[in-house]
């Protein structure tokens, strides 16, 4: 009995010693920031194909409120872009083409990140955008969708489920394939250059 209790006490001391060692090591490495540790404690699962699209609440360039629910009931092509971004500019004619050819079967929304209303107004004018542009001026939606840098395009079905994601500039082939996944009516898109 005594032996067991002594062993138990010794074990407790070893555990204490181990805990102290770990604590010391933690203190020694503590400058890898509380925020970093917090990330491990509460990871953001982020968006993924097959998951619900993440809700948002933004304003458009024209000052109208826009949420994910605004688009429910019809497939949605949601494009993150910025006026200063080279590949965004490269793909924008294709995004615009998708919007022009939607014929009410699906919707297109641009979400502008790390940008200003003034710059975006000029950009929308210059690129003759025909779809609404929502302003994510504080990057909250960009972060929720876990986007390091624009462009990125999410294809969301009429039930609000993400069916495809393209990171980087969208190509006609990728667009054609993604559009079939969100059950939008077939869209005739100018094919990729060989």
């Amino acid at each position, binding site marked *: 009995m005594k032996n067991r209790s002594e062993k138990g006490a010794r074990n407790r001391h070893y555990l204490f010693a181990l805990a102290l060692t770990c604590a010391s*090591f933690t203190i020694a*490495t503590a400058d890898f920031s509380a925020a*970093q540790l917090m990330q491990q404690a509460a990871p953001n699962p982020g968006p993924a194909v097959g998951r619900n699209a993440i809700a948002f609440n933004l304003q*458009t360039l024209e000052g109208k409120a826009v949420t994910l629910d605004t688009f429910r009931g019809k497939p949605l092509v949601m494009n993150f872009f910025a006026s200063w971004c080279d590949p965004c500019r490269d793909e924008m004619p294709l995004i615009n083409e998708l919007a022009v050819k939607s014929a009410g079967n699906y919707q297109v929304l641009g979400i502008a990140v790390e940008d200003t209303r003034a710059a975006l107004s000029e950009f929308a004018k210059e690129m003759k955008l025909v779809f609404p542009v929502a302003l994510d001026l504080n990057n909250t939606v960009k*972060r929720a969708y876990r986007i390091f840098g624009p462009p990125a395009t999410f294809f969301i079905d009429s039930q609000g489920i993400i069916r495809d994601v393209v990171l980087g*500039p969208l190509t006609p082939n990728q667009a054609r394939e993604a559009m079939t996944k969100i059950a939008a009516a077939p869209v005739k898109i100018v094919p990729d250059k060989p």
Partner: protein
Amino acid sequence: MKTLAMGSSLTSAIVATVFSLFAACGTDISAPNNPTHAAALDFNPEQHLGDVEKNPSTPFLRYRADGHLFAIWTEDDDAGAKLNLSHGHEHAAGKMAPSPLRTAVLALSMDGGKTWSAPKRVNRDSEEIQGEENGPKVAFSADNRTYVVWSIPGSKGDKTRANIRFAMGDGRGGFTAARTLNEVNDAARFPIIEIAPDGNPLIAWIDRRIDNPKPRQLYLMRLKTDGHALTKNYRVGAGLCECCKLGIAFADGGKTVYMVDREVNDKQIRNHVLRKSVDGGATFGAPMQISDDGWQVPSCPHSGPSIGRDRRGWLHVAWFTMGRTEQEAGIYYSVSKDDGKSFAPRYLLHANTAPETLYNNLIAGDDDTVYFAWTNLDANNRAQVYLRTLRPDGRTWSPIQQISNAKGNASRPALALRKNDLQVAWTETDGEESRVVIRSARINP
């Protein structure tokens, strides 16, 4: 016996603790998780630069040879507001579309940042001056001449096919009319300016006059001290990522020039490289990869690397990469102690706390201490500015210090250092509003 057991376990703990601390202290700087501690810096309270009604943003800092501190940033241009009113520039929902016209303004502090002069407008004509890493930069000659560069969108409004503008002090307290430096229009972006040790301004930028293949080129141009062209535009490198600031440092009285940038290959893998010139920037050798990060990204990170050279000739480099996995993402550091022939394995300065592009800067002090400033997300998911120092021994790091408290997001920290005064400035944005914040710290007091 009980006491002894506890004593021996405590001894083990202490030995283990001391061992772990020594292990942490003794490892090479290239190994992650080896933070030994230098003191955190004591910063003065925040100051705000510029007219808050005009959304100041994109600060850049520089000390002049006489010890005066200068800050340059951009603000909304009054002419833009007038233009909007006269044109009735309105959207469908009745919200006024703001003007994209921005002006570059320069202010001076003669007391190390405690008080500032009224900002002075640099660009005579109203222009759409770009911000972020494209923002205006200022440099000063040894005899206190002022040189400024910035970029504006191309003739069709395209920011990615932009133009580099230049103006200098006119000797009467104002600035000369701006002129475009790139000889091929609508092809240049991300300008930097430095005064080479020979006294002549050197301007570098990312150029796309040869638009195919897609990676961009590195172009340079030298000016005479009076601002006239000393050289034509000339190409010194290719294969650059389409975006992001460049870094530059000099040695040997200007004979050696070091530049850092992000290179992109045909698989969209982006690694950072050092380019070295031993003929005063006329030609550069093959790019030397600083770290094989394997960052494959087809999108637009817009966060360039930084370089600083200390008195011993060590080249310190910091950069952002996402690496091969999201878990690797963060700000990294490396050093070359052999004049750019090789670099130490990368050291993780601060891991990303969320998927986010981080912006960085560094500066080397007179005592070879290196100061790093960068952005990362805080516990509330807002981007803040952080600071850390590396002691001259190359292994003693200070704790990570958060020095901003932005309500929205802080971005793109700028650094300046002179003797014992360290200055850090950045932009804070919250919705449609922005402001420029500056803080100073006394180092080695």
